[in-house]
């Protein structure tokens, strides 16, 4: 082995390579022999080093990646608690034995399960353990000159040779180096070193594509950034849901939400005090098939200092306020219902959100009247038909807009169960301690109330009035201070990936040997990874020494055709 090869090697030897990587820049005799996967019996230090070397090896990274892919599958096969808790409960009811075992192994919360976490944490440890030394090695590479010109060019995949009729070897080498550096002075394509190897023999060593490794490292670091941002987001976020009727609003405070969730590191301080009012809700449906076309919630956001502004929230267009985003998640009708007792005193009055159950907005809702002066508590449960159609004895809604709204309600009497202290779903009537008053044998007809109508309640319990039909909108407010980091990391990953995959990393060497008046020029090229442009790169440098271009037509054709080979 020549001394030159050794010097090439010594540069590379400093470069860190993960165990098991294939790299053309390592000379063949330099490639470490495949290690036997046998733990050395040299005590815990050696064992730890062995384990670390294994964990950061390419093979293990590959294995962990495939494990991650496989481990992600069950999350799409089984219902997940985080998305659809009801479906999980249903699954457990349908498959009691299997379900219990699946639940025991976190199959209903795959992405929060210990085994899923184990895989990705190991993967990221492996990744960090791999890129930290690589960053160091790359930093060293960036500061050092291209590797010295090897003595023998034969083993390189791309080669060229020319004879320059008259000139000096030094001059030839300089011209080649200039060509390699390219036309832009401050942004050379190749980093070059020109030197005299021995009297009359000048060499150029050149390398390009340091960005490839830079991009690769950026990509991997950015992946860590994505994971950390995502994790921090889970800890810091809060999320509240609120159903708001037109004309009403809510304040950004934990108690004001219908439901509220937050991460482990959440503090009340991160909730900026503002209020939001729903001024108007508009929807557009297509006349012939009721297909939803557009939803717009016009809201007024009022800040602490009293400044307020109006904004439109759409399905795809949340409003932003102090780093929080307010999403439009749902909508429906909230008929204004007033219940009066036998004396004409109001016992209930309000706009009650009825939740749509189909495309025609046939909506279900509940009215609870606990504050009765005399007699038992009253519960009304039933449907709102926005555009009611009573043809053929049926009752159905034929259009989602409130064109001909009717309430169809059943009445219950008894104990609403509100005093039991157990939190109740406002959209469900707990009829355990109640008796049905309508829809029974004696009183089969439900209460049917048109807009603007007042209907008597059975048993002389008073009246119920349906006076207005405003819309309601369901809002979801989410605050996650890490979104900017997440986006930044993601874009860095994308950029780094593209740079790393599409930048060629090439080394080119030129040796100019003086023989009398003539200079013999030999060129060689080596690339990291597949590089179909390598020969072209070498040829372009060689071409500056072509004194004449008298190729035959056949040669030209062959050249053209060979370029078309993959």
């Amino acid at each position: 082995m020549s001394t030159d090869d050794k010097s090439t090697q010594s540069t590379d030897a400093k470069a860190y390579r993960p165990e098991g990587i294939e790299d053309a820049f390592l000379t063949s005799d330099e490639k470490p022999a495949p290690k036997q996967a046998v733990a050395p019996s040299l005590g815990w230090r050696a064992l730890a080093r062995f384990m670390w070397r294994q964990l950061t090896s390419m093979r293990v990274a590959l294995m962990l990646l495939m494990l991650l892919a496989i481990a992600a599958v069950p999350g799409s096969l089984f219902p997940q608690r985080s998305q659809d808790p009801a479906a999980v409960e249903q699954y457990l009811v349908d498959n009691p034995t299997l379900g219990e075992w699946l639940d025991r192994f976190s199959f209903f919360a795959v992405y929060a399960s210990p085994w899923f976490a184990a895989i990705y944490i190991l993967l990221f440890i492996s990744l960090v353990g791999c890129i930290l030394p690589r960053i160091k090695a790359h930093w060293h590479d960036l500061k050092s000159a291209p590797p010295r010109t090897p003595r023998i060019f034969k083993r390189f995949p791309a080669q060229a040779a020319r004879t320059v009729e008259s000139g000096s070897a030094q001059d030839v080498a300089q011209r080649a180096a200039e060509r390699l550096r390219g036309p832009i002075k401050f942004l050379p394509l190749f980093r070059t070193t020109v030197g005299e190897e021995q009297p009359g023999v000048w060499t150029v060593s050149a390398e390009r594509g340091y960005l490839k490794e830079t991009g690769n490292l950026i990509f991997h670091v950015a992946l860590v950034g994505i994971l950390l941002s995502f994790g921090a987001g889970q800890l810091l976020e809060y999320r509240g849901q609120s159903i708001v009727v037109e004309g009403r609003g809510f304040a950004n405070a934990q108690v004001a939400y219908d439901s509220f969730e937050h991460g482990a590191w959440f503090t009340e301080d991160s909730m900026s005090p503002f209020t939001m009012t729903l001024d108007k809700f508009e929807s557009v449906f297509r006349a012939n098939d009721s297909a939803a076309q557009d939803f717009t919630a016009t809201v007024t956001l009022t800040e602490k200092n009293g400044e307020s502004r109006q904004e439109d929230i759409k399905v795809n267009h949340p409003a932003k306020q102090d780093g929080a985003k307010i999403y439009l998640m749902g909508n429906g009708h909230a008929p204004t219902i007033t219940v009066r007792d036998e004396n004409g005193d109001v016992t209930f009055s309000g706009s009650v959100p009825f939740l749509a159950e189909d495309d025609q907005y046939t909506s279900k809702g509940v009215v609870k009247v606990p504050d009765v002066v005399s007699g038992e508590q009253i519960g009304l449960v039933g449907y709102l038909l926005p555009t009611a159609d009573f043809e053929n004895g049926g009752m159905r809604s034929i259009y989602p807009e409130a064109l001909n709204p009717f309430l169809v309600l059943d009445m219950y009497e008894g104990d609403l169960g509100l005093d039991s202290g157990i939190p109740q779903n406002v959209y469900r009537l707990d009829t355990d301690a109640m008796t049905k008053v309508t829809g029974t044998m004696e009183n089969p007809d439900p209460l049917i109330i048109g807009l603007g109508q007042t209907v008597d309640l059975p048993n002389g319990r008073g009246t119920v009035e349906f006076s207005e039909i405003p819309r309601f909108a369901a809002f979801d407010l989410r605050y996650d201070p890490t979104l900017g980091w997440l986006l930044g990391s993601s874009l860095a990953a994308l950029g780094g990936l593209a740079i790393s995959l599409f930048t060629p990393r090439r080394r080119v060497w030129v040796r100019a040997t003086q023989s009398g008046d003539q200079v013999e020029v030999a060129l060689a090229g080596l690339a990291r990874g597949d590089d179909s442009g390598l020969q072209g790169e070498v040829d372009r440098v060689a071409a500056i020494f072509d004194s004449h271009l008298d190729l035959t037509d056949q040669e030209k054709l062959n050249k053209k055709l060979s370029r078309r080979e993959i």
Partner: protein
Amino acid sequence: MGQISDYLVWGAATAYAIALVCFAIDLGRVSEAIGARKAARTKALAQAEGSGAVSGGAIATALGGESASADEPISYVGRSSKALGIAMAVTTVGFLLHAGAVVTRGFAAGRVPWANMYEFCLVGTFVAVGAFLAIQIFKEIRYLGGFITFVVLLFLVVGMNVFHIQADSVQPALQRYWLVIHVGIAVIATGIFTVAFVVSLLQLLRDSRDNGSPLVTWNWLEVLPNADRLEALSFRINAVGFVLWTFTLISGAIWAEDAWGRAWGWDPKEVWSFIVWVVYAAYLHARTTRGWSGRRAAYFVMIGYATVLFNFTGVNILFSGKHSYGGLN
């Protein structure tokens, strides 16, 4: 307009079918030529041995007139044959009809034509053919033609018969420029993965043939670039696909953040897009891992493309999630 689009799709499908037949005929001719040459060589060798004079000249003479340079390998580079010419021309015609189908579909629906499974099929296959024709401008890959047209024809016919729905506007959740970007890039990535898959498949076949597999005995495989070169080509195409897929995930997360209030929520489509990404990431790693490059890396492409297909079909049909825009019931 929607009707016109459908007619154009059938027109394109017909063109691809004709092209497929022509590509197949051409590969058949190549196979025959190689077979004949081999037989002749064997015969010549036998004769030469018999006469005791083993020389290249004798073999060349024995091979005779039809192919003057018999020792020169038959190659697709610079190949001209009637069948191949017709095949490429008809593929181009099919591609133009296909383009017309995509454009008219867009006008019929009044939006970009990639919002349901049928349209995804329509545009994905369009991208695959486009990628094939575009690469052919720079590099000789006509040997892929038969396989590309086969896959595209298959998907088009399945799309027309199984996924097809009337052109229509989309629900409010999809009315965003992200539909153009996120889904558009996803379709392009899928089309590109399709081409790379075909290349990797041929790589495996070529490799099997080179290693004397008794199952893979087609002569035409010898005309293809060797397995290493096919692997390199597949990698370059897959690299583009992978970058686009990464962008699909990122743009999807941005859109989901705007529309659903979370960037990532492990919806079935998100799960499988993630799996696709991880498998292709594993593929890129495998290529640079000693002992895993070459044939084994190609297996990753097979798995990766299977997950792409499942993400498109299986996830839309079997699971219900937030990405239920397929248009099937």
